[in-house]
């Protein structure tokens, strides 16, 4: 094993680089640029139910991006809900609490009454059941 590594240092380096890339891509995955831009522009916001919503009229391209994310979110919620003996709605709503809390100033989020709010430096308006 040692001999293999020393005889092919390039291979070892490549393997190391691949390993570190894989690690960073899973731990620090980035948002889709279109989604990130729409989020920053306040076109999309975090809903109470744990999914993304459109704040105003959305282009078909943006709709495609958001719907794709919401489908992926639902798949993750479903998997995690099952692992935690909860319903998908329960897990999604809990995630909504966390996601609204994680919004940064300028981003949009849905208040418990259903209205869209712009996040400020102050704590967001959240459901009374949120931790």
């Amino acid at each position: 094993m040692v001999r293999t590594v020393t005889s092919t240092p390039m291979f070892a380096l490549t393997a190391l680089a691949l390993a570190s890339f894989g690690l960073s891509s899973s731990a620090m995955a980035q948002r889709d640029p279109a989604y990130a831009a729409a989020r920053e522009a306040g076109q999309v916001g975090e809903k109470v139910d744990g999914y993304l919503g459109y704040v105003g009229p959305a282009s078909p391209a943006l709709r495609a991006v958001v719907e794709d994310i919401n489908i992926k979110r639902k798949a993750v919620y479903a998997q995690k809900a099952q692992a935690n003996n909860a319903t998908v709605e329960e897990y999604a709503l809990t995630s909504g609490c966390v996601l609204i809390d994680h919004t940064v100033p300028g981003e949009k989020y849905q208040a418990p009454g259903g209205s869209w709010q712009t996040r400020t430096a102050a704590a967001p308006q959240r459901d009374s059941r949120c931790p």
Partner: protein
Amino acid sequence: MTRSCKPATINRMNSGNNQIRSRIRVWPLAAMPLLLTMGGCITVKAPDKPIVIELNINIKQEVIYRLAADAAQTIDKNAEIF
């Protein structure tokens, strides 16, 4: 209700002379089940809206508290979709 109505109808059939009077007496009895049914309809309609709120409240705070830490971890691990 239907049973108590039946004797009234039989009475009317037996006493031929008092047809009009007994008919008047039968009316409120016959109308009662109808009124009761109508009253029932109103009470069924009333909870239409509260049911929606009830579904929303169904998710209890304790469940959210139990899942919160796991949800936060899941969001961090799947940052590209959150």
